[in-house]
């Protein structure tokens, strides 16, 4: 057990830091600290251009194996990359669903042909992805997927509705879980499809959120043509579960640095407006700092791998931890703002400040991707061996 980084690691840190210094400026300067959760709807074109700049610098797919064009960076290097990226205020990544979810899935389960078709466009920041998992009424319960895939002369066609799809209207591709076996129930009989968004059978409707903005969408598929199926029909559940694993990868460290930026902003305000002298707020600010640190330590354990490579307890609790922490941070932000917390900007409709937006948008953290209640069930059942929920007779 040791925490320190090697001299090679530190050289890598210097490299990314310098690159960001030289590139996250000029036309990209306004993107600093923008485009994160709750703010994903801003600067779309500029952020796509930024993805291409990143790609040109060789900073996309740094964790991918080299045979797929990646840099095969070690965990430590990836940690460093995400730390420095967030420290510099790097904008919310338009490409993260492609780079962090679609690509690892294709690398693990895709055919050579699929890898050749999709990976370069992701690596070059040319094509963007979104995720078609949740369905209305099914919540995060993937086993309840009702979207259907029908094979028509060798072409899979998708019909159904997905919801909570972020950036769907900006994406070129969507990966979709749909039922290939019409008689199946639960986690059997699902397939994992790649669907082009720009076709008549795909209709994207924004969902206006508590913030008044819309970054989530409903996506309606009606006989939409799937360009590809990954794996075999019926393997969709297995692939989707692996993909959920990728979500808990190194990118969590990037998320943490965004959180750190938010906490820093709150601390700055507290020091300015006197809230930092309030003993109650001091305790809560310290607890927020403490919670973020333990989140980071948990992620470091997660990335280092468990002693026997099996169940990682720290991974099991990770979502519950960050979601709850982030929601609490939103409340803390408002209390630190004090009497000004309620007042909006006066530039147009419902002009939320960054911290007001944090307060409202973070309410979704404990809901999407498995509510806190679902997370607690999973922890108790898988982590502690407590009985599963009873089903109705």
């Amino acid at each position, binding site marked *: 057990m040791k925490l320190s980084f090697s001299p090679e690691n530190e050289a890598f840190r210097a490299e990314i830091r310098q690159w960001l210094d030289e590139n996250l400026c000029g036309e990209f300067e306004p993107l600093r600290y923008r485009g994160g959760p709750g703010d994903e709807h801003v600067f779309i074109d500029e952020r796509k251009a930024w993805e291409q700049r990143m790609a040109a610098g060789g900073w996309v797919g740094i964790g991918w194996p080299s045979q797929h064009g990646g840099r095969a960076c070690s965990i430590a290097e990836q940690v460093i990359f995400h730390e420095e990226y967030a420290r510099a205020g790097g904008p919310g990544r338009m490409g993260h669903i492609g780079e962090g979810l679609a690509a690892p899935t294709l690398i693990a389960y895709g055919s050579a042909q699929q890898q050749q078709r999709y990976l370069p466009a992701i690596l070059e920041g040319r094509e963007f992805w979104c995720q078609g998992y*949740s369905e209305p*009424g*099914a*919540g995060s*319960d993937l086993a*309840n997927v009702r979207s259907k895939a029908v094979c028509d002369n060798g072409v899979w066609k998708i019909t159904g509705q997905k*919801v*909570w799809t972020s950036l769907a209207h900006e994406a070129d591709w969507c990966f979709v879980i749909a039922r290939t076996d019409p008689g199946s129930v639960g986690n059997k009989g699902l397939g994992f499809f790649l669907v082009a968004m720009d076709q008549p059978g795909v209709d994207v409707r924004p*969902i*206006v*959120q*508590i913030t*008044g903005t819309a970054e989530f969408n409903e996506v309606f598929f009606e006989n939409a043509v799937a360009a590809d199926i990954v794996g075999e029909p019926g393997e969709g559940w297995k692939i989707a579960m692996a993909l959920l694993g990728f979500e808990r990868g190194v990118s969590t460290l990037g998320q943490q640095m965004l959180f750190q930026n938010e906490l820093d902003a709150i601390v700055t305000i507290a020091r300015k*407006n006197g809230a930092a002298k309030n003993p*109650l707020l001091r305790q809560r600010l310290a607890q927020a700092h403490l919670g973020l640190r333990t989140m980071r330590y948990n992620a470091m354990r997660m990335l280092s791998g468990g002693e026997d490579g099996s169940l990682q307890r720290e991974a099991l609790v990770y979502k519950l931890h960050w979601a709850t922490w982030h929601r609490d941070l939103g409340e803390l932000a*408002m*209390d630190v703002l*004090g*009497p*000004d*917390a*309620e*007042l*909006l*900007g*006066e530039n147009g409709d*419902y*002009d*939320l400040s960054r911290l*007001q937006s944090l307060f*409202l*948008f973070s*309410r*979704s953290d*404990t*809901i*999407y991707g498995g*509510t*806190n*209640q679902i997370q*607690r069930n999973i922890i108790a059942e898988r982590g502690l061996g407590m009985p599963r*929920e009873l*089903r*109705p007779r």
Partner: protein
Amino acid sequence: MDFRFTDEQVMIRDTARAFLADASDSAAVRAAMAGQGDAWARVTGEMGWQALTIPESCEGLGLGWVELAIVHEAAGETLLVSPLFATLGTGVSLLRACAGEQQQADWLPGIAAGEATLGVGMQGPGKDWGLRGCGVRYRPGDAGYELRGELASVVDGAIADTLLVVALDETESPESARVFRVAADAQGVTRRQTPGLDQTRDLAHLQLSEVQVAEDDLLDGSRAGWPAIQAGLDLGVIALAAELLGTAQRSLDLAVTYTLEREQFGRPVAGFQALKHKAADMMLRCECARSAVYYAACTADAFLEGQASAAQLAEAASIAKASAGDAAFENAGEALQMHGGVGFTWEYDIHLYFKRARAGRAQWGSSDWHRERIAEFILDGDEAMS
């Protein structure tokens, strides 16, 4: 001792609910958020609530704070967008406590007739509730007094016809505190509506530059300084607490209704113990807030009849505000969570409750502020309060 509604009070409640179910349904609230509709005209025209606590001698209904709490609770249940709280809850309350007899006779009949709305201002920008946050100073002026300063987050301050302004002189001592009646269109008053996170309540920023106030417009009862004024404000705190009680209760109701309808894993999600237990805790908070609000309302009546002290009123008001504010915010937050994905969409109403609850909990003294005031009573005095 009889701590339950009279038959007449039950009737007032039922009537209020029936009226608001129509006048302040979701569509009406959303229209009002966009500046359309006028619930206030219906409130004054059909219900006459603006006259509720105005004495019969001043052409009001002569009812008390229990009735005041009942209509505010109902308003909080439906997120009524109107100057009811500003005019009746805060304005009339302050006048009842601090205006002299003649002043009441002069001013209250117009309000009872629905001809004027009120707004109460004390807090300066970025300042806390309480006298230390007072944003306006007075000094002798040509006509009597001259006011200058800034007021923030004045509820309905941009639409009120008449402002009641709490101000200090240059000594900034509690004894120097006074309340002045200022016409909203008086020379030197600049008003700007400030958009808020909670769109169901109008807030305003007010600038007062050398505003001249006649001697007659100094509220007589405020000549004694802070204690009388504080009591007048506490009467308003109870109205806000009652609103928050309504918001807390409706948040629970919405959550229970939604979870009974929504099915997951083959059964209504209301059957999951985690949600049942959340709901049980929400009900506990509601019932405590309910008792605290109506106890405070009874104390307000006793105070106005000379049967309770200002300290008893302050304690009861703080308990009500902290209880109801926390109940509203926590219940609305839990209700949002219990709605799952739809809870944070603009389409469902629960986010409106959540925003109103947060704003209300912070206004007129946050829960922490009121708890600190309770702490002063029990910990700092020579004797604990009875």
